[in-house]
């Protein structure tokens, strides 16, 4: 029983911290807008938060792998990986205004902040059995517009970074070399963009099915 209360405490703590982390980024953004009147250009203010908080999500893969959380390791790993690739591989790596202060970044940040605040709140409230129906409804409804908006922002950001990846040969290895290997991060980024075409519909449909299952035919509010 002690172990159960410890794991419960840990998961509540983790999800509360993540809720706080993403909320902080939301608040910083609102503050930035109030101070400058500018919707864009907030990256400089919150980049440390973004790096730390998004990287912490790697723990979620471990949660699944250890059975602490009942979810697919592969699904979680794919989701977290795509975020890490975007944050570290593209946004942090390409210090260009069009990438860090561009429309794409603003769109993806908005989608991520709202979705993650809802998602992590959903988790800790569920664990404590204090989940208001409103939060459950929001978590399984907001994604309908937010997911496509986020995907558009992500693709736009990667696309904006492409010319810089090509010119700088960032994270790439060329022939000839002693190990006879080569890797082009530029090509890798393009392949990633192409993969959105089959993967996004799959994930979106999965969420729609989940929505039907969880919100579906309920006419009464659950406590």
């Amino acid at each position, binding site marked *: 029983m002690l172990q159960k209360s410890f794991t419960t405490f840990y998961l509540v703590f983790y999800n509360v911290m993540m809720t706080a982390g993403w909320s902080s980024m939301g608040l910083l953004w609102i503050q930035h807008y109030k101070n400058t009147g500018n919707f864009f250009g907030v990256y400089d203010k919150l980049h440390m938060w973004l790096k730390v908080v998004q990287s912490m999500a790697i723990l979620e893969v471990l949660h699944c792998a250890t059975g602490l959380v009942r979810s697919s390791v592969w699904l979680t790993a794919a989701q977290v990986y795509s975020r890490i690739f975007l944050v570290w591989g593209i946004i942090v790596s390409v210090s260009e205004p069009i990438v860090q202060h561009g429309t794409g970044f603003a769109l993806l940040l908005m989608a991520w902040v709202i979705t993650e605040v809802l998602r992590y709140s959903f988790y800790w409230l569920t664990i404590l059995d204090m989940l208001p129906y409103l939060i459950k409804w929001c978590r399984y409804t907001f994604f309908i517009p937010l997911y496509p908006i986020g995907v558009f922002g992500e693709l736009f950001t990667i696309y904006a970074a492409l010319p810089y990846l090509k010119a700088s040969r960032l994270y790439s290895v060329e*022939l*000839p*070399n*002693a*190990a*006879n*290997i*080569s890797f082009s991060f530029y090509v890798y980024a393009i392949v990633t963009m192409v993969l959105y075409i089959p993967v996004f519909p799959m994930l979106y449909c999965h969420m729609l099915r989940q929505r039907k299952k969880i919100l579906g035919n309920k006419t009464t509010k659950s406590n």
Partner: protein
Amino acid sequence: MEIVVVHAASGKELARLNNLSASSTILDVKKTFHKHGKKVALHRQAFRTEPKGRTLNDNEVLKSLQLSSGSTLYFKDLGPQVGWKTVFLVEYAGPLVVYLAIYWFQPRFLYGRLHADPRFPITTIAAGCWTLHYTKRLLETLFVHRFSHATMPLSNIFKNCGYYWGFAAFIAYYVNHPLYTNPANELQMKLGFLGFMLCEVGNLSIHVALRNLRPAGSTERKIPVATWNPFTSLFNFVSCPNYTYEIGAWASFTVMTQCGAGTYSYNL
């Protein structure tokens, strides 16, 4: 006696089969069921005594399954099937064609105007090793292996070919590249080559030993033991040394060619 065929997933009754006896086998059931309804091909039929039980073998006798007249058998359609031998032949022929085509033509769409001229001898030796490996696989498919199942799901052929042909192209691209860097060390190349050859012989020895364990036309499984062939002594350490030798062969190939792509060629 009469057997009732019920769809395992839906519970719907599909057919009532007559002209069966207690000594009939599952294969007889399949042949009889084939005449009904959608005339499902024999290889697509799977029968179970429970809706979610194990699939029954063709040679199992109705009496020994405790089935009598009026008993139910649960049916599942396995979907379009393709022969194991067919899949093996196609998936192994591809790498031969792909690798040798890249080696010989050094295609423009891969290498642009660059051309390896003259080539390093090790590149030719690697092509020879590759050819040996896949020719051996094709011959084993035709003359050595005794398959447990006749067919597998059709979608497997696309997955398997994608894997084998894809990695063949990947490795061939680097080993035959005009900018390929020769391993500095001649000893390394010789050891790699020797390792590769020994592992090929080892792998073949295991395949032959396994074949000899299973009488022709049967799907018996026996525990393998080491034979007079020293290469089979690995049976004393692992159950499937054919995989050990396969890993060894490709590790040797990687060392021999000093090519990072070789680490992805464990064609299991």
